[in-house]
Structures are given as C-alpha cells and as structure tokens.
C-alpha cells in the first residue's frame, strides 16, 4: 500500500477529531438546546452503541406539585430542571401502583398528577418529539 502523505494524515486526524467532537456535543445536548427550550438531548449510557438519537427519547417537562419544596429532587436521571428522560419512564401511580407504559405517558395531559419515586409532581406539559 502506498504511504499516505502528511497532508492526508493531518486531514484525516482533523476529520476524526472534528466528527467526534461534533458527536459528543450532539449527544451531550449542546445542539438540542438550540432546537428546543423544553427538551434536552441525552447520551444513552451504553458504551458500545451510538444509540438512538435524542429526538427518539421520550421527554416530558414537569414541575413540582409542592411549590414550597426547595430541596433537590434527588431522583436518578431526573435533574433539578425537572426533565424526565425516556429511561426513567417507569412511574407508579399513587393509587394502583401499576407501572405506566409509554402509551400511558403519551396520554398524560397538563395538570395531571403523577408520583415519581414517591414524589408528587404535576405535569406541566408532555410531548413526544418525532
């Protein structure tokens, strides 16, 4: 095989670094913030897969039912901003204790009350991005 010249080597490394940096930025949500104020991109915590795109994830914005609560929600996968990710969609209802399916989440409306890991929350808006 013919040895590639220096220019080609530098161009290839630049492309590699540029694309990986772009991918990391994309998966960490930098682009997502430009696209929508209500959603953030997530990186799936798999090490072998690029995974589904952020737009595939189920995203809902909720706000705390108790406006006086000031402590951190401290729920895995649910940051302080109150964004619930697709991975965290297993929620139990306060009455029956059943696990919500994706279909149930799609049916959620503004004002509905849900219990997530023991904390009462009111749905502010719920939508699935396609």
């Amino acid at each position, binding site marked *: 095989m013919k040895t590639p010249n220096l220019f080609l080597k530098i161009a290839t490394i630049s492309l*590699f670094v540029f694309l990986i940096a772009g991918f990391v930025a994309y998966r960490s949500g930098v682009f997502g913030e430009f696209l929508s104020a209500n959603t953030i991109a997530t990186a799936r915590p*798999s*090490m072998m897969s690029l995974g589904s795109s952020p737009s595939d994830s189920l995203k809902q914005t909720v706000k705390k039912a108790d406006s006086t609560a000031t402590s951190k929600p401290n729920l895995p996968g649910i940051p302080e901003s109150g964004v619930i990710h697709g991975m965290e969609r297993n929620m139990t209802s306060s009455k029956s204790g059943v696990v919500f399916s994706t279909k149930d989440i799609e049916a959620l409306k503004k004002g509905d009350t849900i219990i997530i890991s023991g904390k009462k929350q009111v749905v502010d808006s719920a939508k699935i991005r396609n």
Partner: protein
Amino acid sequence: MDITNTIEAAGISLLFLVLVFFPMEKVFPARAEQKFFRKHWLLDLCFFLGQYLLWNGFVLWALSYVNFWLSGIIPHDFRNMIASESWWAQAIEVILLSDFLIYWAHRLQHRSAFLWRFHKVHHSAEHLDFLAAHREHPLDTIYTVGIINLPALILGFPLEAIAGFIAFRGIWAIYIHSNVRLPIGPLRMLIGAPELHHWHHDVKRDAGNYANISPIMDIIFGTYTCPDHEPEAFGIKEKLPNNYVGQLLQPVLPTPKDRNVKLANVKLKM
C-alpha cells in the same frame, strides 16, 4: 418509538461511523492488507443492524426495569447522602466504580464457562474494525451495560450530567476495535487505544487488557499488556456458526456435552 425513526437513527449512525472510521482505517491501518469489505463484514453488519433495530430497545427496557426495581430498595437516606456530595465527587465515584466493576465482570466473562458462551460471540471476529465492535450477543450486551450503569443506578447519579463524557467513551469503545494504529503515547494508559484492545482479541483467550475503556484497572491488577506489534490472529479456537441467527442461538442452545450429560442422567434413572 416510530419504526421510521429507528431505521433513520441506524442509517445516520452507520453513515457517521463510516465517515469517521473509513478514512482512519485507510490512512492509519493496523493491518494494511485488510479490506473494507473483508470476510464476514455482512455478518457484522447484521449485528450492527440487529443492535440498532431490535435489541437496543430491549436492553433499554431491561436497564429501565433494573433502575425501577433499585429505586424501590435503595434507602432514600443513602441517596440523599450521596447527593449531598459535590457533583464532581459523585461523577468520579460513579466512573471509578463503573470501571472497577466492569473490569472484574469482564474477567469473569473470560473465566466462567457460562458467561463465555455469550461473550465468545464478540471474540469470534477474525477481523477487527469499527463494524466488528458491534458483534455482541444481546444477552452479553445486557450484562455489560447493566454492570457499567449499576453504580450510577445505585447511587442515583444522573448520567445526563456526564453525557458528553459517556458519548466520548461510547465512540472510543468503537474506535479501539477499529483497524487503526495511531499511537497516542502515555495517554493510552488513561483512555485506551486500539493497539491495547487488539491484544485483548488475540486468538489466545487470556492475553489481558480486560478494561473496556480506561486501562487503569489493568495497570492496577497487572493485566496490562502493550507489545509493539499486532497479534498474529484474532478470533477464538471454538467453532461458532458464521451466520447471524446461528451466533445468536448457539449460546442459548444446549451443547452436545450438555446433551450427553442429560442422556447419562436419564440412563442412570432408568
């Protein structure tokens, strides 16, 4: 999730990987004689598509289920204690614990006959490149992904906080399988490199370099190896079908040895 979106995501991911790795493998090849469309590339493409179109959802569901189950049994006081720590301390704890667990879990995959049945599918690749990185039995993926994420799930650490780091490690994990030799000096002891992981895929099963990403655990536990040349051959000594369905089924089907033991038991009962 819409099937169209899934197919679109798989197509874009494949295009992205080709854009990133094709030039790298051409300009900095570890094995210059290896072609892009090498033997069994179609099989690895099946694994890639299977992972994106079929198994990712299943793995995500399993992980979500474990997370839900853990949320119920982990005391809130414990999680509050962890949450009271600074963000960077939590991140370091999660990353180190994750690396520690996956290192030993990976060694166990090579030691335990049961786990090796599934893990050998990944090691059966005789040609390494970015596509071969995706050759993995779905149950092996659940095991690996579950263990990697276990510390974060137990401690209640939101992985979104280190999304950029996870994304980098995700693509680096594919890079270390690629047919690239581009030494990065001592940095490889921190983030890993193809020349290290290629030795892990040496046809001799226990060559070392078990850490999936950062070789720190290999250095600590004495399994770090970095010869200045490529291994002679990749793959495994055992026979495995050369088709997708065969590779998925073989680990879950009883081996002739298992059948013989069962027959012997039946005869003894008679």
